[in-house]
């Protein structure tokens, strides 16, 4: 998946991080430009391709959910899959962004277009503060401290001051982005879609850059052999803290978007269910691979909508599938399928 390119060789030599890349060795050589251009054109054209407005709005609703959770899962995959930090606080960070932005709009009356960025920055700050004691510790301690943080924040949002907790129901009647006032209720969804897309694409690009950069190599090195990585000049704490803050920014931004799209957020989002659902996206899609979380997120966003009738059994099945995948296909379904497809097509893996 990585390693055979010049970027890898150079990076290890030059103490990782600021190594200059040759243009043709850069990560863009992994993607075919036409495919990316076609994908972006399709995404931009989707509102017009999706047909009449009731169907269109449902499709766009799903796509917005996909974009939001896609940002969160990609970030989490970078933290957990690529660099081996078992953080279980990503949903809490999502909520920090949502609450910051929501409360600012409700209490100060600022525009959500401004406060969403405050939400992202605030989440970064919170993540850095959380990371300071957490990231020096080993695996299981990180699980506990991050789970604990999530529980604490959930506690705060159910029992805290009224403008935060709303009597235990969380934030309600949060002002949405004023799209409905601009273009009318039916078409507002299109603008929400474009805003979500405008968050998703840069976030994905940024994560992709990290993923295939020397910095990404450093994270893999830390995961696979911390002692060796340290001996080659990778500071584990600094790198992990950077990653934690970096991912938190996009996670918080997604949370802020969520609250101004949906108009409300409940502390129940921080129950273990959401976290597990996101984990399932990553594991089913493909742990530590770039496309895995995106594919898993797409499947697990669309599938529940098609399986409404058997919704109760969905979680049961999901749990079993998760356990079985961890045992029988630890790399995840997507890399497995991809390998078979590639073999059938008789080409070497490019993704």
């Amino acid at each position, binding site marked *: 998946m990585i390693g055979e390119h010049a970027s890898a060789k150079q990076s290890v030599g030059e103490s990782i991080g600021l190594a200059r890349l040759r243009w043709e060795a850069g990560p863009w050589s992994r993607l075919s430009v036409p495919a990316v251009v076609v994908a972006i054109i399709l995404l931009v054209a989707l509102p017009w391709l999706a047909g009449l407005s009731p169907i269109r709005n449902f499709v766009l609703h799903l796509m917005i959910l996909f974009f939001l959770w896609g940002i969160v899962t990609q970030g989490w995959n970078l933290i957990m899959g690529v660099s081996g930090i078992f953080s279980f606080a990503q949903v809490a960070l999502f909520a920090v962004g949502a609450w910051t932005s929501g409360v600012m709009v409700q209490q100060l009356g600022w525009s959500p277009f401004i406060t969403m960025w405050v939400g992202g920055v605030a989440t970064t700050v919170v993540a850095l503060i959380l990371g300071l004691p957490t990231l020096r510790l080993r695996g299981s301690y990180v699980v*506990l401290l991050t789970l604990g943080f999530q529980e604490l924040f959930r506690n705060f949002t159910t029992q805290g001051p009224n403008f935060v907790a709303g009597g235990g129901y969380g934030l309600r009647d949060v002002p949405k982005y004023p799209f409905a006032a601009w273009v009318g209720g039916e078409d507002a969804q299109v603008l929400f879609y474009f805003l979500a897309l405008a968050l998703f694409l840069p976030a994905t690009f940024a994560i992709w850059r990290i993923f295939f950069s020397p910095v990404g190599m450093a994270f893999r090195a830390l995961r696979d052999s911390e002692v060796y990585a340290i001996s080659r000049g990778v500071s584990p704490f600094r790198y992990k803290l950077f990653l934690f803050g970096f991912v938190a920014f996009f996670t918080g931004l997604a949370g802020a978007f969520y609250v101004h799209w949906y108009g409300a957020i409940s502390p129940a989002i921080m129950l273990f269910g959401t976290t597990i659902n996101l984990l399932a996206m990553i594991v089913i899609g493909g742990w530590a691979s770039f496309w895995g979380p995106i594919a898993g997120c797409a499947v697990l966003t669309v599938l529940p909508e098609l399986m409404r009738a058997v919704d109760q059994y969905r979680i049961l099945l999901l749990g079993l599938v998760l356990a079985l995948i961890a*045992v029988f296909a630890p790399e995840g379904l997507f890399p497995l399928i991809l390998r078979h497809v590639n073999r059938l097509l008789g080409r070497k893996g490019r993704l």
Partner: protein
Amino acid sequence: MEKLVQALYGGIVYGSIFGMMALGLTLIWGSLRMLNLAHGSLYLVGTYIFWTLVTVAGVPMVPALLVAAIGAAVVGFVMQTTLLNRILGKPGWDVGSLIVGVGVAMALDQGILLIFGPRVKSMPPLVPGLFKIGRVVINYNYLVVVAVAVVCLVLMSIFLSKSRRGLAIQAVSQQPDAAQLMGIPTRTVFLIVMCISAGLAGLAGALLSTVYQVQRDSGSSAMLMALVVTIFGGLGSVKGTIWAAYIIGLLQSFLMVYLGAGTALPGVFLFMMLMLVFRPSGLFGVGEAQRL
């Protein structure tokens, strides 16, 4: 004075309960090196088996407790033999076992929800009746729970330090490879540890259903506290876990009595975070050589 008695009494009750939950977690961590996130669900299995036997089938309390513990142990046995044994000792064990735990937890929790429904159920106490010290009400039921938990903790530490099997468990957790070379069947030991741990979780779940109510999310909150205790005591250390259980229990109880119920959880977490900053390997931070 009354507040002090109330706080001490609550602390001992909480401590015993946390100790039972945390002991199973720490045994699994010590020997299998797995953070078993299905522990809370095994607790629930015990709770619901106990509830069914006592209120639906009318079985007496004591055999029902035993069956609940055995039922949870059987679930642990199945999880170990069908899933965990296949990835044991392979690369990616830490991630794989974590995800297996999460998956099994999800399936068990949802299965219980499908079978028993979301309604909160109530259990009669093991032993009815109460007495008072001043104005502090002391239930016989709580005392029985504490007694059972303490007996379990004592028996477990004797088992681990004196019996042949217990010594094998200690050997395997200190040096799995060396233990295997000395002729200890490591896979059997892992299986025994899993069954004991699951059984303890089931027993805790059954006992606690008489203290709290029977509800489907009680497992996860019990597991969270058990995790706090396990980590506070130093992962994998039995002595540390038992000490930590009572320290955390007393802390929670004192916070509840003196500062109000809402401060207990944040207070405990804050305390733990601070301690981890200053003593990153827990209260009895044992080195790699002398776990358990």
